[in-house]
């Protein structure tokens, strides 16, 4: 197990480096001069030149990269051009927000997607199956911003049930925090639920016709137990794997949802940073999300490992 873990980590390192090089290069190729945005409306040439020196933008790009990665290895991800805040501090501020949003959306996605997938597999070819599929597809094709704004207009403005937007840390007021995050999590969750539902359905379809499900029936177990215990337990592996990947995706950016609901998370940070050409912030976030992504992959493998006795006991 440990060896496995270490090997995975070893594989992850080149990937992360590759990502950082890739994103760094990509950023440098972006049109637009960050300093022009930074210098203010007046764009004083003197200030421009000073800033260019300060942020070492005159160095050759490989040197810039090496400087950055060197600092990154010591835990210094640079400072934001825009707000002068250290990137590490920004990330530390945003990460809990993003995690909370991701977790809550995932809960929605799971709560909707998995039961729907099970039911539609179990009732394959029936009206229930069709309805579940159409609903899942609509979750996929309804744009997040539309659903988001509609929810705000209805739930917050009209019925005044939930706060329209913003973020409250759970430490400050737990219930308010949950309430504020409810709508965005739902909006994000529905889109994921569709994917989850489709995968659950196909996994369950495969499992429901398996011999051991027949065995379970032959034992005289109730349908409920046959489906939820014997079948679902085996369909779980691909579902968990997918869930971990979705979670990784969520961390990488729920851009539009965060924008609509004004949630100060990673998605919003990275978009603003890209638009402002806030190189250090972009690079820092990409690095963190890449690590997150890889950690999620790792967790998916671990889940695989834990869910599959075949691997566990080897």
């Amino acid at each position, binding site marked *: 197990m440990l060896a496995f873990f270490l090997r995975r980590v070893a594989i992850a390192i080149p990937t992360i480096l590759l990502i950082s090089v890739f994103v760094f290069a990509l950023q440098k190729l*972006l*049109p*637009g*001069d*960050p300093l*022009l*945005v*930074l*210098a*203010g*409306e*007046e*764009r*004083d*040439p*003197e*200030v421009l030149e*000073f*800033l260019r020196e*300060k942020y070492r933008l005159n160095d050759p790009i490989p040197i810039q990269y090496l400087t950055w990665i060197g600092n990154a290895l010591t835990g210094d991800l640079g400072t*934001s051009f*825009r*707000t*002068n*805040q250290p990137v590490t501090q*920004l990330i530390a*501020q*945003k990460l809990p927000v993003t995690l909370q949003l991701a977790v809550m959306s995932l809960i929605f996605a799971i709560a909707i997607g998995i039961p729907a997938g099970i039911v539609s597999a179990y009732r394959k070819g029936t009206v229930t199956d069709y309805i579940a599929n159409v609903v899942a597809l609509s979750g996929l094709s309804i744009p997040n911003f539309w659903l988001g*704004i509609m929810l*705000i*207009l209805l739930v*917050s*403005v009209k019925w*005044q049930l939930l*706060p*329209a*937007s*913003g*973020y409250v840390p759970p430490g400050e007021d737990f219930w308010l925090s949950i309430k504020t995050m409810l709508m965005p999590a739902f909006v994000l969750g529905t889109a994921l639920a569709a994917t989850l539902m489709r995968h659950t359905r196909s996994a369950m379809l495969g499992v429901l016709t398996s011999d051991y499900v027949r065995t379970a029936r032959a034992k005289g177990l109730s349908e409920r137990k046959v489906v939820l215990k014997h079948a679902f337990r085996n369909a779980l592996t691909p579902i968990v794997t997918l869930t971990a990947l979705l979670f990784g995706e969520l961390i990488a950016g729920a851009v539009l949802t965060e*924008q*609509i*609901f*004004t949630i*100060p998370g990673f998605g*919003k*940070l990275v978009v*603003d940073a890209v*638009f*402002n*050409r806030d190189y250090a912030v972009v690079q820092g976030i990409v690095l963190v999300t890449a690590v997150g992504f890889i950690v999620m992959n790792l967790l998916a493998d671990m889940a695989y490992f834990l869910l599959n006795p075949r691997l566990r006991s080897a």
Partner: protein
Amino acid sequence: QDLRIGLQEDPDVLDPDQSRTFVGRIVYTALCDKLVDITPDLEIIPQLATEWTVAEDGMSIDMTLREGVVFHDGTPFNAQAAADNISRSQTLEESRRKSELASIASVEVTGDYTLTLNLTAPDATVMAQLADRAGMMISPTAATEAGTDFGANPICSGPFRFVERIAQDRIVLEKFADYWNAEAINFDTVTYLPIPDTTVRLANLQSGDLDMIERLSATDLAQAEADEDIIVERATSLGYDGMTFNVGNGDRADNPFGTDGKLLRQALSLSIDRQALSQVVFDGVTTPGNQQYSPGSNFYAAAYPVPTRDIEAAKALLAEAGFADGVDIEVQAPNDTDSQQVMQVIQAMVAEAGINLTITSKEFATMLADQSAGSYTASLVGWSGRVDPDGNIHQFVTTDGGINDSGYSNAEVDRLLNAARQTNDTAERKALYAEAQSILSEDLPIVYLWHDTWLWALDSAIEGFVPYPDGMIRLKGVSKSE
């Protein structure tokens, strides 16, 4: 009592010398006092400076400061502090205020609360500059200690002090008990929340999560006004929006609308129905314009009124320029929906005159870079506006102007605008600007299109809010009834 204000975006660094965003200035009005302030009619009035006199020759200004003012960290405010502030603005390497204060040669501290600003040349704009970020006073103690990191914990002398900031989430200020004008302040805390989406911003106000929002979208105006729990306040902006042409900035100036394209630019201007544009895109909330200031303002040159649309005249100009069969032009515009809408309307309008306009939408950073590098033909850009007319025009059209992206150069215009800087006589200045306008209306390096109207939507419980043409939110005298 807490006041919650929805902003359109997250401010940048909260250091008056380093910051550059409009929303940042909104926060400063509560956080940092300036030497002088303005009235809604753009008159300069005392704030931390109680009196000032400009010398006969215009080469210096004597100033008396308010006594008994302290910064949030307890450091007393006095002439030395003010001098330090001006010096920081001029010398801090990151300072974005250098050009604004370029005409101040030195500051003499003449007493505990008096000082003299020595100028390099007579400059009518200095006091107006001191009415904005260049005149904001920050604690010299804190400034020395924090250096360029001052923005992480800004210490000024305004009615509210800084409590915390979570990037992209909120900025919280609390009432400063020792504020010199504390009785005019009715809130214990004020929280600024950046909410970029206009619909969501309004929704937050409607749901009661906010007390006030800035920049209500023009198309939401009707809806907001229909809501009896909401009051809308408005003020015409000091800024403008228009189309800047590349007439001399690099190779791309060599195009039909460029260096020698005066006639085509006139044709384009004539073929736009500014009234309709304002009506279609902004529900008539904005003011059609053709000059740096809006028609109602003091410095508007009434001799050159907003042209009415004249397709025939435009066609004639096209023919005169040798493009009777039509002409192509590519215009870059920011990728926000308003600009896209404006461009599409203009596209349709100018098409009738035979101008075939293509729109290139760019995100802001790219557009800015292309514009300053001269890699564009025409560009839809705006300017947030300055209190002194000089700030709206000088740097754009004078030969070495700092942001003369157009590459326009005309000796007479240079002369007139420089002269307008050096006199303090308003009537004389008006005449000079009008004269410059006569040339610019002809040359059209910038085709002015409209002037925004600031719209604030407030909860009906908010009282005492005064709209200012600079778009700021001044909290003096504002209160919230229970």
